[in-house]
């Protein structure tokens, strides 16, 4: 009898079915497709390291660029990469990836190219760090912005040395 009441009640109400074009919103915390911001990526490789199904890989073209590759067909949408990314370059979009007619190879693969930049001091190609990272790690000296890691280390050690050793002695040493 309770069943009869339920189903007759359904008959009186409009159907709860949504049209295929008008499907329910994805919840804001939904872990959907990955988005990669090449400007913030430092190519540190943490995401590729923590990815359990190995959906993220890096390739490099020496002296020109580093590429971040992501294969949706291998992702389990766990979100570890976004959680561990030190510069928040990876984010999980709230929209679900759609169905594709293409083969597993294309359409399901994402590539993001990080262009290398020449060092402003020695000219060596390197992955540029985002400004916020440089500020946090190396201070805010404008001249050192475009340094490669090697030159940055050298500049930092020179600064360190300058802090301990008086200027004339240093000059003398050299």
């Amino acid at each position, binding site marked *: 009898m309770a069943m009869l009441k339920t189903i007759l009640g359904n008959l009186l109400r409009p159907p709860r*079915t949504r*049209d295929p074009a008008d499907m329910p919103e994805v919840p804001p915390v939904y872990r959907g497709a990955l988005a990669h911001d090449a400007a913030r990526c430092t190519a540190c490789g943490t995401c590729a390291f923590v990815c359990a*199904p190995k959906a993220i890989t890096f390739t490099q073209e020496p002296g020109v660029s580093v590429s971040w590759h992501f294969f949706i*067909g291998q992702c*389990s949408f766990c979100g570890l990469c976004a959680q561990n990314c030190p510069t928040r370059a990876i984010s999980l979009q709230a929209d*679900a990836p759609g169905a594709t*007619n293409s083969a597993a190879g294309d359409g399901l693969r994402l590539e993001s190219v990080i262009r290398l930049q020449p060092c402003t001091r020695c000219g060596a190609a390197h992955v540029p760090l985002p400004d916020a990272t440089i500020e946090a790690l190396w201070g805010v000296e404008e001249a050192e912005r475009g340094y490669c890691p090697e030159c940055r280390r050298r500049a930092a050690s020179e600064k360190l040395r300058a802090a301990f050793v008086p200027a004339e002695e240093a000059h003398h040493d050299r």
Partner: protein
Amino acid sequence: MNLIERVIAISRRRSPWICRLNAGSCNGCDIEITPLLSPRYDAEQLGVELHGTPKHADIVLISGTLTLRSREAILDIYAQVPNPKAVVALGSCPASGNVFAGSPLVLSESLDSVVPVDVWVPGCPPRPQAILDGIARAAKLLEDGATKSQLESRRGRLS
């Protein structure tokens, strides 16, 4: 194309019967098929019917990692589906093996190397609306005669 052929082509889009094939899935994708039949998503509004036997199906939904033992079963069941047919791969596992790739018991390759796949639905698991969208795409391919098995048979007839 005469009228009857046209009507049959439209009917293929309007009445896609699906058959579920679990190739070694964690059941996540299979569970997401259940809401398709529920009041909110109601696949029947597109004419979809879930059938247990491949003989009645037009579209095979394959979910799960391809294991060494499921390969034969997939081939067997795919061969039982009467032409014209379409294959929809659900989730990440058929595309690559997902987290199971590299296991000695798992075929670490795409489902495409076993049976011709027409539509890939990404997600782990895909949302019900994505599965519905995948079925609708496959049904459209059936209408256009553009599924891989249809193209293959047409090529066979020509040569």
